[in-house]
């Protein structure tokens, strides 16, 4: 695959992929149940509720209780999917997830929308940028941040077959769809293009920004090795180390704090195996603010220009 093979086939929000995936997995697996904390429309869970009213639980604005209910349902053999905003899926209920779900090895799928600054106008109270860090620190937790509608849909279906707690992170804005036909396997990164000058390893919405940046870099004669990491934990170490061996430097790109995100996972991998220059495209120890998604991505250093300049800097440090 090269950049020329990657086509935008439409636009939809990743949360739509969750809603459609949930309906599909509800049809194929009758152990799947869903819980929602008063955000049915935002999470796109309406179709599941309509199709399976007896397997849908409206819990109200009580996220701590929702996590406990999910743990109890999982204890009885169900596969609960919880749905609320990423902020309320993680920070608000960290202790409940830690004790009743992660430490207790409950098969709960924590599905979190409106992550990052791209939720836009609601502002920093809702724009969680620390969630990946919190979740990946929990032993046994799988952390997945898909990049478009289609990947989110496939991830939502795939996690039902994976035993153990999962954090599935997605977002609010309409976003280009470009992974149609690409397989989704938990823990397996996707090589979007091989290259020799710089590795760009991106997750979530920033994969599209990385593709745009790689096209710009390509026009300047720079060969980009481009990887979509959707599963941040467990990390696909093989695809990353192989990429680094081709390029000798790396840019990580994510809609998250530098602290604790994909970039830190890659940095740890490299420090232990093959240290090379690394640049982060991520939020640098700051809260977000109100604005439009694209404006916020640019203001907080996560636009395509930021990926381009990070790549040039990484190359210059080789």
């Amino acid at each position, binding site marked *: 695959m090269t950049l020329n093979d990657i086509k935008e086939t439409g636009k939809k929000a990743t949360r739509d992929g969750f809603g459609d995936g949930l309906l599909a997995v509800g049809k194929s697996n009758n152990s799947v149940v869903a819980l929602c904390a008063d955000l049915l429309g935002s999470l796109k869970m309406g179709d599941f509720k309509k199709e399976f009213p007896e397997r849908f639980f409206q819990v109200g604005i009580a996220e701590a209780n929702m996590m406990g209910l999910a743990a*109890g349902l999982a204890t009885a053999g169900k596969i*609960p999917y919880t749905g609320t905003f990423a902020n309320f899926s993680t920070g608000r209920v960290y202790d409940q997830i830690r004790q009743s779900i992660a430490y207790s090895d409950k098969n709960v799928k924590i599905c979190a929308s409106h992550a990052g600054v791209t939720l836009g106008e609601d502002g920093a109270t809702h724009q969680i940028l620390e969630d990946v860090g919190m979740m990946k620190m929990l032993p046994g937790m799988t952390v997945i941040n898909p990049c478009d509608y289609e990947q989110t849909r496939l991830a939502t279906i795939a996690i039902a077959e994976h035993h153990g707690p999962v954090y599935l992170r997605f977002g609010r804005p309409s976003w280009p769809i470009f992974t149609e036909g690409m397989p989704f396997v938990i823990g397996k990164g996707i090589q979007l293009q091989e290259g020799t000058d710089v590795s760009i390893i991106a997750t979530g919405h920033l994969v599209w920004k990385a593709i745009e940046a790689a096209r710009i870099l390509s026009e300047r004669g720079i060969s980009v090795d481009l990887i979509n990491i959707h599963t941040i934990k467990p990390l696909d170490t093989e695809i990353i180390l192989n990429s680094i061996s081709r390029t000798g430097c790396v840019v990580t790109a994510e809609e998250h704090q530098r602290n604790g995100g994909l970039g830190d996972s890659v940095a740890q991998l490299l420090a232990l195996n093959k240290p090379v220059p690394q640049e982060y495209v991520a939020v640098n120890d700051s809260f977000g603010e109100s604005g439009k998604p694209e404006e916020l991505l640019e203001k907080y250093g996560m636009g395509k220009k930021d990926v381009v300049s990070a790549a040039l800097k990484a190359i210059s440090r080789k």
Partner: protein
Amino acid sequence: MQSSAELQKLEQIASQVRRDIVRMVFYASSGHPGGSLGCADFMTSLFFHQMNHNPSFKMEGKNEDVFFLSNGHISPVFYSVLARSGYFPIEELASFRFINSRLQGHPATHEGLPGIRVASGSLGQGISVAAGMALAKKLDKDPSLVYVLTGDGELQEGQIWEAAMYAAFNKLDNIIVTVDWNGQQIDGPNDKVLSLGDLKGKWISFGWDVMEAQGNDMKSIVEAVSDAKSRTGNGKPIVILMHTQMGFGVDFMMGSHEWHGIAPNAEQLEKALAQLPESLGDYPAPKL
């Protein structure tokens, strides 16, 4: 109504459970004897009389009554009744709080101890988990019951009331919550730390079927749980506000928060055991 012989047998088991509690905490030099002793009668009545449960443990608990301990720090009483009712060898009680043990300081599933369905210790989470299990039983048309024990100080946690609101609104009438209402918590009496106010009124206003019982009177607690079982299936979750004394059964531990979380010394252990007749045989002491 139970025969006096049956009640006497339960009281004898409870005495052994209390011996286990003080010995476990003594050998571990740590743990929580106060609440454990106070709940020994209730836990004995559940595991040896009231619950239809299967000691050849299956996590999913289908078609059997299941129990969740929300106030996980009273793990000694939980471990004792589990071992004494056949979930794991009683000899294993000697490993309580030691390294490489399945008997963690607070209950955990992580080491695979039969009988434990969720970790607890960080307070306020048990009713939610029990309500999730109750939902699953309804979904599966499984008529068995879900029991959960909470502390009283624990009711200061907000999640408790999220769960209370949810269970009543959703008519989870297959759940029986028992509150260990000993009036004490780590820093002193509830009424000095953060009063629970009109506790009965709170549960009533949340839509629960509320009962009271004397938790250190075997007859009272057996009758209360029987009564609670008879009230299930009527559209309301049930709560038993169970009056107990922290440390009940050991005179110098009774009625004070001082023994919430400390271990007796050798002399105190001897004094405690002298008040608690051995009925089922003590487990072998650990080699220290």
